[in-house]
């Protein structure tokens, strides 16, 4: 057993010595592999870099997941629950009629925001993306714009004010709210206050003429026993791929919707197009690479016929001679891969330096992952080993007696 292992190690050393002694030819073969592997890695790095960057951008912006319900309808809690429980849904919350989603906000020092948007939220809101979005009755999260106008920070309190005309009398409903947080400006551009769904529902009932004790409105009909109803919903799909099916489900109920499906499809199309381009180029260069490797290996075997016959004469078996050639192919492709990886490293650095900082192209990335690199290595070794096997099949017919005769 150990003799067999020794022999294998000896075979490996002989194969390496042979390659090193013949280094000019070895360099040619390895260089031809570098010439295939490096551009393919770069091309793949670009494809992967560009596509994953676009996808990242899509994912980073929750608005890409948003599905807007364009028309107002009349939905009950059952429908909303059904919507929330669909597997494609990431986040859904009922919204009131659009007129009632506005209110005035009053800060200290007479600062105020007229007709700020009042938007319902609850835990898991992707637009807010904060655990604080699980709001209770009198808590509020302000958009940066609203907080700026009110000169208010998290921890302060503000006054929410709505008015109505009931039975010919102008009435004012007011509620003190606790500011829990202020959003990052990028998250929401307009002045807005995010509140719990019940609070928004209270605003609507106030405008509809009901009693809403929280707003200090004690006139009008009692809202007791009134089932909550929604005119629309704030809806976010679970992920990029769920937008289309969720939209289809809504459209099937004759609910008009708008989403960024076009952008999502554009990224998918870019991914597909780049994938096809990469596949075709990779296939073409692979064919060329295999042809050149077969040529190189077969020519090498003819050149080294005498040495191979000598190895057989000295006691190496046919399989060992085949293994000798496959080992050499593996060494060469390993070297070619390392060279290709180095070229890729330089190339991607250049790409990222020269193009990455430009304003026009945005953040430009050429990138492969560790696993991509590993798969490329295994592919290179596999191709080389298979090609070498073709040569080895020819080499095992070499008889040890050939070493005795003059060639």
């Amino acid at each position, binding site marked *: 057993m150990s*003799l067999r292992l020794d022999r294998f190690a000896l075979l490996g050393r002989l194969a390496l*010595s042979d390659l090193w*002694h*013949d280094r000019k030819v070895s360099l040619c073969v390895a260089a031809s592999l570098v010439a295939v592997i490096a551009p393919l890695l770069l091309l793949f790095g670009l494809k992967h870099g560009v596509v994953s960057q676009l996808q990242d951008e899509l994912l980073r912006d929750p608005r890409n997941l948003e599905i807007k319900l364009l028309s107002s309808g009349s939905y009950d809690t059952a429908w909303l629950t059904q919507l929330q429980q669909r597997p494609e849904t990431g986040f859904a919350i009922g919204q009131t009629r659009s007129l009632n989603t506005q209110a005035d906000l009053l800060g200290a020092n007479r600062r105020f925001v007229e007709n700020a948007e009042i938007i319902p939220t609850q835990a898991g809101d992707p637009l807010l993306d904060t655990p604080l979005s699980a709001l209770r009755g009198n808590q509020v999260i302000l958009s940066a714009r609203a907080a700026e106008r009110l000169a208010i920070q998290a921890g302060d309190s503000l006054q929410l004010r709505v008015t109505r005309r009931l039975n010919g009398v102008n009435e004012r409903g007011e509620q003190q709210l606790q500011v829990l947080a202020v959003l990052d400006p990028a998250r929401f551009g307009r002045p807005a206050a995010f509140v719990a769904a019940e609070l928004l529902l209270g605003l609507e009932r106030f405008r509809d003429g009901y009693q809403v004790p929280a707003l200090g409105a004690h006139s009008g009909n009692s809202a007791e026993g009134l089932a909550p109803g929604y005119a629309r919903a704030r809806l976010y799909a679970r992920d990029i791929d769920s937008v289309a099916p969720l939209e289809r489900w809504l459209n099937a109920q004759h609910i008009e919707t708008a989403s960024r499906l076009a952008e999502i499809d554009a990224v998918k199309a870019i991914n597909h197009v780049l994938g096809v381009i990469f596949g075709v180029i990779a296939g073409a260069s692979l064919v060329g690479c295999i042809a050149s490797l077969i040529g190189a290996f077969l020519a090498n075997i003819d050149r080294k016929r005498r*040495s191979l016959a000598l190895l057989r004469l*000295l006691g190496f078996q046919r399989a060992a001679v085949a293994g000798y050639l496959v080992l050499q192919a593996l060494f060469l492709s390993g070297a070619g891969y390392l060279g290709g990886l180095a070229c890729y490293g330089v190339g991607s650095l250049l790409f990222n330096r020269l193009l990455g900082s430009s304003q026009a192209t945005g953040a430009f990335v050429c990138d492969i992952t560790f696993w991509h690199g590993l798969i490329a290595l295994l592919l290179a070794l596999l191709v080389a080993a298979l090609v070498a096997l073709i040569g080895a099949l020819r080499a095992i017919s070499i008889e040890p007696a050939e070493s*005795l*005769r003059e060639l």
Partner: protein
Amino acid sequence: MLDIQGLRVARGTGAQAHRVCLPALQLGHGEIRAITGESGCGKSTLLEAIGLLLAPQQLTHYRLGRERLDIRQLLQNDDQPALAAVRSRQLGFVLQSGGLLPFLKVRDNIGLPRRLLGLPSRSAHVEKALDVLRLQPLLDKYPQALSIGERQRVACVRAIAHEPQLLLADEPTAALDPLNARRLFELLLSLVRELGLTALVVSHDWALIDEFGLARLAAVSREGETGFVPAA
């Protein structure tokens, strides 16, 4: 020792076939036999058959070495692994133009047969042979840096490195000057004696063969067949 009877072997097929026969050959330990004949008469073919590189058409008897290994049985069973093992362990070849691996230094070329068999790398016989043939200064050179004569000397040392039972040499002195040819012959003879080898040497160098008083197997051609018989 070597004991062969009724060996008949052919190279090529049909009308171009070259047939060679060896009626009988018996050699003991330390015995050396020269094989002589014109070029192309089949000396190398005979050597290949005895060296288990070419399967014979007929073979009555073939035993080799102290263990009197039955080679005929192995050939009949076409037991290639066993034949390859016999070849690498019991036989040593000196090839016409050296037959060294170009990518190994002289030292590694000589050491290869021993390493292949898992033998210790140092050997007194090898050291002695290196001294006698004055190869010590060349150990770290590659074959391409050697003259043909030097390569031939290295090939001789490699052939006996693993202390085989039978040494087969195919015109080992063809490319050597008379002085080195004589030195090589002397070495071969002394090695054969000391190691108790049996040796077959194909040679054109009649003068050298006569000088060392070697017994000969001479080629006799008749009816498209070359027979090798003992000559006076």
